[in-house]
C-alpha cells in the first residue's frame, strides 16, 4: 500500500519540540490544600473514565457487522492516543486555560502541560474553582472526557468512514468544538458557567456535542450501500455489547461521581442518581419494547442503560434519587421512540448516536432545568437556581438556551469540519472497500480466526471495482 509518512513526521516533530521544553517538575509538591482522600478518589475516577473508551469500543464493536468489528473498535481506542497528546499540547489549555472572552482558554496557559504541576489548585480569575487535588489529577480526569467524546461520534458513520479522514476530523473536532464547549461550561470564567448553566458531568459538552456531530456525520457521509439496499445488519457479537455496557456503567461512576472532584457527599449523590437513572432507562427501554410486542432484548437493555447514563450526566449532582428514576425512564422511552423514527427514515446513523447521545443529552439538560434542587450560597442564602419542578423558571430557561446554542454550534461546526476534511481526504471509503469491510481494507485485519476456512476468510470480494469487460487478473484494488 501507499507509504503515508505525514502522521509520523508530525508526531516526531512534536516529540522533539517537547524535548526542549523544560517541563514542570516531575512530582508536583502537593500544597497544603491537597486532600489525600479526594486525590485517591480522583485518581481512581480518572482511571475509571479511561476504561470507558475500551468499554465503548466493545459497546459499538459488538453492534456492527463482523467485517467492521476491528475498525469500529480501533476508532474508539485510537482516541486514547490522539487526544491524550493533543490535550497535553494545547487541549487542556484551550479548555481550562485563562479565559479569552469566556469562549476559549488561552492556549499558552498550560502549553505542553507547563505550569500544570506548579499551578495552585485554583482555576478562574476569581479562583472560582478551588480544588483539593493536584491540578495534574484534574487535568488527567478532564482528559478522559475529551477522549471519549469523539469516540462516541464514530458510531454514526461506522462501517464506511476512512480511517485517515477520521483521524483528521477527530483532531479538528476536539480543538474547535470540544475544547470551547468545555471551557464555556466548566471554566469558572466560561460563558455558560457565568450564566449559571448546570451541566454536572457533560450533558452538553460530551453527549450533545457528540450526538450532533454524529447527526451531521451521518448526513454528510450518507447511507451505507447495504442500508440503501435494506439488507439485514446482524450485530457481530452481543456479548461484546454486554461487556461494553458493563464497562461503561462501571466507568461512568468515575465520570459522574468523579465530577464532584472530591470523595464527598456530592460524589455519593451523583453515584446514586447515576445508578438509578441507568437502571430505570434500561428497564424502560425493554419494557416499552415489550409493550409494543417486541421481545425484550439484550441489545435493548444495553442501549437503554447507556441512554440512562447519558441523560443523568448533566443532572447527576443536582437532582434527588427518586427523581432520577423519572429522568431515566423518560430518557429511555424518548430515545427508544427516536430510534424507531430513525429506523423508518433514510438517515443512516449506524449505531443511533444521535437518538441516544444527542437526544439523551438534551433530555438530561432539560430535566436538570426541571428537577435541580436549590443550591445555597456561602452565607447560607438560597441561590434561586432550583428547577421548574420547584416553581422557579430561570434555571430552566437558562438550560434551554444553552441547549439550543450547543446543538446549533455542534451541528453547524461539525458540518463544516466534515466538508473541510473531505476536501483533504475523502471521508468515505469506496463502495468496494465498504463491501469487503473496513477491517480488511483499512487495517488489513480480521476480527476472528477460528481455524476453519470460513472464519478465516472473510470479505466476500464481489469485485465491483474490477474492470468489468477485461478479465484482468489483478488483486482487488484496495485503497489505503
Amino acid at each position, binding site marked *: *500500500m501507499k507509504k503515508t509518512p505525514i502522521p509520523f513526521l508530525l508526531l516526531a516533530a512534536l516529540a522533539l519540540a517537547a524535548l526542549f521544553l523544560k517541563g514542570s517538575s516531575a512530582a508536583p509538591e502537593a500544597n497544603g490544600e491537597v486532600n489525600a482522600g479526594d486525590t485517591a478518589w480522583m485518581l481512581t475516577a480518572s482511571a475509571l473514565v479511561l476504561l470507558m473508551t475500551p468499554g465503548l469500543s466493545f459497546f459499538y464493536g459488538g453492534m456492527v457487522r463482523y467485517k467492521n468489528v476491528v475498525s469500529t473498535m480501533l476508532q474508539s481506542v485510537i482516541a486514547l492516543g490522539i487526544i491524550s497528546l493533543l490535550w497535553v499540547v494545547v487541549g487542556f489549555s484551550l479548555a481550562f486555560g485563562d479565559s479569552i472572552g469566556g469562549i476559549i482558554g488561552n492556549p499558552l496557559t498550560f502549553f505542553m502541560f507547563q505550569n500544570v504541576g506548579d499551578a495552585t489548585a485554583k482555576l478562574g480569575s476569581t479562583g472560582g474553582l478551588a480544588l483539593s487535588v493536584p491540578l495534574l489529577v484534574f487535568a488527567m480526569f478532564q482528559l478522559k472526557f475529551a477522549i471519549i467524546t469523539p469516540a462516541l461520534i464514530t458510531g454514526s458513520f461506522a462501517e464506511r468512514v476512512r480511517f485517515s479522514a477520521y483521524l483528521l476530523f477527530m483532531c479538528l473536532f476536539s480543538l474547535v468544538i470540544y475544547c470551547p464547549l468545555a471551557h464555556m461550561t466548566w471554566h469558572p470564567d466560561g460563558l455558560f458557567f457565568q450564566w449559571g448553566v448546570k451541566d454536572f458531568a457533560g450533558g452538553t459538552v460530551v453527549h450533545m456535542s457528540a450526538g450532533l456531530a454524529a447527526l451531521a456525520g451521518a448526513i454528510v457521509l450518507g447511507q451505507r450501500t447495504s442500508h440503501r439496499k435494506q*439488507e439485514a445488519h446482524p450485530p457481530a457479537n452481543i456479548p461484546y455489547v454486554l461487556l461494553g455496557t458493563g464497562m461503561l456503567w462501571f466507568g461512568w461512576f468515575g465520570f459522574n461521581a468523579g465530577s464532584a472532584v472530591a470523595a464527598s457527599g456530592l460524589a455519593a449523590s451523583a453515584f446514586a442518581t447515576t445508578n438509578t437513572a441507568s437502571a430505570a432507562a434500561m428497564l424502560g427501554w425493554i419494557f416499552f419494547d415489550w409493550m409494543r410486542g417486541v421481545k425484550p432484548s439484550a441489545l435493548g437493555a444495553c442501549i437503554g442503560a447507556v441512554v440512562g447514563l447519558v441523560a443523568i450526566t448533566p443532572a447527576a449532582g443536582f437532582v434527588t434519587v427518586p427523581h432520577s428514576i423519572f429522568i431515566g425512564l423518560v430518557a429511555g422511552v424518548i430515545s427508544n421512540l427516536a430510534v424507531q423514527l430513525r429506523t423508518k427514515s433514510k438517515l443512516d446513523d449506524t449505531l443511533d448516536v444521535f437518538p441516544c447521545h444527542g437526544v439523551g443529552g438534551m433530555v438530561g439538560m432539560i430535566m436538570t432545568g426541571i428537577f435541580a434542587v436549590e443550591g445555597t450560597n456561602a452565607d447560607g442564602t438560597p441561590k434561586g437556581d432550583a428547577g421548574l419542578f420547584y416553581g422557579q423558571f430561570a434555571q430552566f430557561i437558562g438550560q434551554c438556551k444553552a441547549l439550543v446554542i450547543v446543538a446549533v454550534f455542534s451541528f453547524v461546526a461539525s458540518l463544516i469540519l466534515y466538508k473541510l476534511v473531505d476536501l483533504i481526504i475523502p471521508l468515505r471509503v469506496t463502495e468496494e472497500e465498504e*463491501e*469487503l469491510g473496513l477491517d*480488511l*481494507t483499512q*487495517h*488489513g*485485519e*480480521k476480527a476472528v480466526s477460528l481455524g476453519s*476456512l*470460513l472464519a*478465516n*476468510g*472473510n*470479505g*466476500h*470480494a*464481489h*469485485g*465491483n471495482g*474490477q474492470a*468489468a*469487460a477485461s*478479465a*484482468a*487478473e*489483478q*488483486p*482487488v484494488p*484496495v485503497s489505503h
Partner: protein
Amino acid sequence: MKLILAVIQPTKLEAVKNALAEVEVYRLTAIDVQGFGRQKGYSEVYRGQEFSVNLLRKIELQIAVNEDFVEPTVNAIIAAARTGPEGQIGDGKIFILPLEDCIRIRTGERGPEAI
C-alpha cells in the same frame, strides 16, 4: 433427476433465492465455501508484516430438481447471480450432476416425487 451445484457470490444469495422461488424451486441446501478461481484475493497485516490471502468466500447451493426444472433453474441462477449486466470475475459456476435417486426421510417416498 439432477443435482445442481451453484457457486455464487454471498451477496447474491437473497436474489438467487427469490429468482428460484419465481420458477417454483423452493427447496435447496446452502453451504459456506471458499473459492479459488481467477478472482484474486487481498492482503492482511500481522505483526507488521503483510501477507496475502487468496481464498474468497462463496456460497454453494445444492438443488435437486426433476429434469424439466433444470433449464429454468439454471437460467434463474444465471440471471440473479450475475454482477452487473456483463458479469464479473468471481460471479461463480454452475455444475450439473446426474442424480440417481432421492428419498424424503419424513415419508420414505422415493424418486421424482421426493424432490
